[in-house]
């Protein structure tokens, strides 16, 4: 099984800057399968696509935001048994402001070693937030 690179996003309260937990449902734009359904999380792992732009829709309780990641895709060789995988370099992020207040890129390299790539600052009025 080849390694997989995931973009890791941490949820924070935009007022207190503290990490928060939310009930999240997420799916890829135009994708019929949900990535997450009503999962209560403090951070989320998002698989980017091999294209230059990956769009996710994330539902925080009842409010849905769209996040577009514009990235460079870098093909990597894992081994001759497991073949290839992709890593990414984030170039910019566009998003709606229904629940998201702002997004900060903390590490633009999305690699097989999962670490925090972005901070998602959420408006504090979200129901269910801590």
């Amino acid at each position, binding site marked *: 099984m080849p390694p997989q690179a995931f973009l890791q996003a941490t949820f924070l309260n935009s007022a207190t800057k503290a990490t928060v937990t939310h009930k999240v449902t997420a799916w*890829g734009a135009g994708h019929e399968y949900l990535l997450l359904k009503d999962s209560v999380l403090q951070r989320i792992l998002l*698989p980017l696509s*091999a294209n230059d732009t990956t769009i996710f829709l994330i539902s925080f309780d009842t409010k849905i935001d769209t996040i577009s990641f514009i990235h460079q895709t870098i093909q990597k060789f894992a081994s*001759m048994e*497991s*073949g*290839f*995988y*992709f890593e990414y370099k984030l170039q910019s992020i566009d998003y709606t402001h229904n629940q998201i207040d702002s997004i900060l890129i903390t590490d633009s390299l999305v690699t097989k070693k999962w670490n925090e790539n972005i901070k998602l600052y959420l408006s504090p009025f979200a129901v269910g937030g801590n």
Partner: protein
Amino acid sequence: MRILNFTFLLLLLAAISYGQGEPQKKVKPKRTDNYIRMRGVRLGMDITRPFQDLWTKGNRYGSEFSADLEMWPNWFSVFESGYEVMKIKTNYIDFTGQGSYSHIGFDYNFLQAENKNDKDVLFFGLRYGFALAHQKVTQYWVDSYWGPVTGQFGNQNYFAHWGEFLVGIKGEIFHNFYMGWTVRGKVKFNHKNLWMPPVYFIPGYGKAEKGFTMDFTYSIYYNIPWDFRKKKGLKETSLEKDKLPSDLNPAKKK
């Protein structure tokens, strides 16, 4: 890795200096009558090459032929050449690497002849090996939430070279027919770097990512009984006959 390279260079230098030192001293060999002699060229085929997939990962097979010739008493120059293929097919990749390779070097025999017809040799050898090869990925598959991504890489050519040190034996099983094995250590010198995918397999050497590999060969040989150095050989033979004990010397028995 550096130690292995250094060891190989030391062995090579020692062998070269030994070969060069001998004529300068002009010391005649002590056992002129005990040398194991081989007239003509000995041709061989390594019978392990087609079955390498039994002990290596992936479907690896090939063929190898050799020729060796006595240059000086106990010193044999050797040329080995072959072709190898490595195929790997998994759920994620369909890969083929293949190419030709050659070894050039020498063997030094340690055994003495107990009688004139002894042909068995126990030897130490050094080789310089090089390969011209190419690889391709017929198809690869990357699974993700967004669906599978497929692609391919066409033929990529590369060169590699390495050094080998070995020990082995060759025994005469029938008149002019031999069998023998070698155990080899191989030290990679260099190979061309490919961007993607990297060079995976070097024919005649093994996995490219390794700086040192071990190998085993088992070959059959035929000594062509044609002495193209006949004039020189006859002269040496007559000299050697004079030095043989009477019970081994047919000329003196008469």
